[in-house]
């Protein structure tokens, strides 16, 4: 590889990530059982913002994040990613939209019996023809993107390890690499550090912040801990019983604001503590 090619390759890996805005207009979600998970939520997130969604479990944060990539359809209202309305999409259109939105999960959601590499390949699903996936032949372009994604989270040396053999923090890094391999414009994170010990939690949050700053991605991260929201995100959205109860700068959120979000006084378990 000539230096020139190397430069294009490095840019290429970041290139398609022109961050997109997220807009919710009067979005409500009612599950088939009758549970109202979201009630009339309206908000708009600018491209490249790092936003936390804070609330207790059952407050609707998981539902909110899943309406953005259509994993949970909005019962009423509109969800827009950039200019695109999520609700009207199905089949190929929906898969293409999802291909541009990375997502990581509390439980990592890896196929633990397969290699780290196979798991990261999942991130290329929407970007490669199905026959390629079925035959297991990755294009050189895909291989380069996957390598770069693994490298950026420091997991390249473990590419051939079985995903199930990794520690929790390493698993979440592989999951981040999987999402980065999509070359997304938006990154969704559903309680990404709730299954991790405090030091690992801080380093994974640090990875997300770095992705936001270096790649300019719009990041939407669900958290239930107030100090993580304050420390790592610039804007905070508070949910309580499916309703928007706070929307403002995360650093400026007072303890009273958190008490409004939690619907009770602050307890020790609402804070993770610093890395040490």
């Amino acid at each position, binding site marked *: 590889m000539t230096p020139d090619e190397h430069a294009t390759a490095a840019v290429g890996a970041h290139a398609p990530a022109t961050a997109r805005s997220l807009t919710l207009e009067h979005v409500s979600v009612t599950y088939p059982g009758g549970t109202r998970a979201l009630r009339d939520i309206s908000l708009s997130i600018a491209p490249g913002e790092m936003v936390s969604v804070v609330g207790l479990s059952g407050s609707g944060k998981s539902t909110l994040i899943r309406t953005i990539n259509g994993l949970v359809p909005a019962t009423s209202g509109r969800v827009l990613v950039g200019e695109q309305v999520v609700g009207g999409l199905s089949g190929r259109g929906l*898969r293409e939209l*999802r291909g541009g939105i990375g997502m990581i999960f509390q439980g990592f959601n*890896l196929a633990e019996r*397969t290699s780290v590499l196979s*798991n990261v390949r*999942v991130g290329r*699903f929407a970007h490669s023809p199905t026959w390629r996936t*079925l035959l297991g032949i990755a294009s050189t372009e895909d291989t380069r993107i996957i390598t770069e994604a693994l490298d950026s989270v420091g997991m390249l040396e473990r590419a051939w390890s079985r995903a199930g053999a990794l520690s929790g923090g390493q698993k979440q890094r592989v*999951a981040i690499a999987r999402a980065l391999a999509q070359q997304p414009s938006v990154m969704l994170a559903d309680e990404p550090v709730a299954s991790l010990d405090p030091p690992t939690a801080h380093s994974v949050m640090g990875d997300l912040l770095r992705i936001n700053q270096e790649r300019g991605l719009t990041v939407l991260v669900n958290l239930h801990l107030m100090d993580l929201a304050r420390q790592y995100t610039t804007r905070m959205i508070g949910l309580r019983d499916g309703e928007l109860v706070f929307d403002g700068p995360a650093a400026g959120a007072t303890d009273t604001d958190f008490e409004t979000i939690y619907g009770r006084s602050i307890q020790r378990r609402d804070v993770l503590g610093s890395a040490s």
Partner: protein
Amino acid sequence: MTVATCLPAIGGVELELGAITRNWRNGAAKLQQLAQPNLAFFPRTLTPMLETLAMAVVGAVTAAILSIPVTLWAARASNPSALGRQAVRFVVNVVRAVPDLVYATILVAMIGVGTLPGVVTLILFDIGVVVKLVSEAIDSADHPYIEAGRAAGGTQSQINRRTVLPQSWPFFANQWLYSLELNVRISAILGIVGAGGIGRLLDERRAFYTYEDVSLIILEILVVVVLIELLSQQARRRLR
């Protein structure tokens, strides 16, 4: 003694206990023959035994390959379409409901005497077993990575091929090995209706009342089954 001689009169039913005393010797003679396997018969069992083994392996391997897509169609995790799933499950249940001897008899009539009807019977039987048990095992496991695959914009077949399948290999491998064990046992019986293998020889020697030969054949089947069991135990250990 007195009680024994008086009993037949009770209720006016004529129980000929005498028949037992006279005939049990015949059975005993057969048991005695069975207890003395005719080792000299061994060379003649070799070819049919290899034929049975070949049938068992070919049947198990073919069924294993065919069982992969059918199982994925039958499991909820890998096939979200309830209608398609029900259809596949219905067909598999029908296949399972027909006894293997019935398959063999019909297939011998259709294809002719030989190993082919036996192999086809084994394939049908194995697919029924593997698809049912493995699809149930898949559905009872958690598949969090499917949501990740969907969130990444993957199609169901991409998700199945790259994640569900590698996650489910141990379920498949367990049943494939088990079906190989079963095949050796079943193909011994299938020979009776003309579907080839050691079973045909077993039936022939039984018809000639040469129980020493029958005994040797049974012994051989036992040895082969135990050997396959040991091999599959090794393979299973490696899969964990």
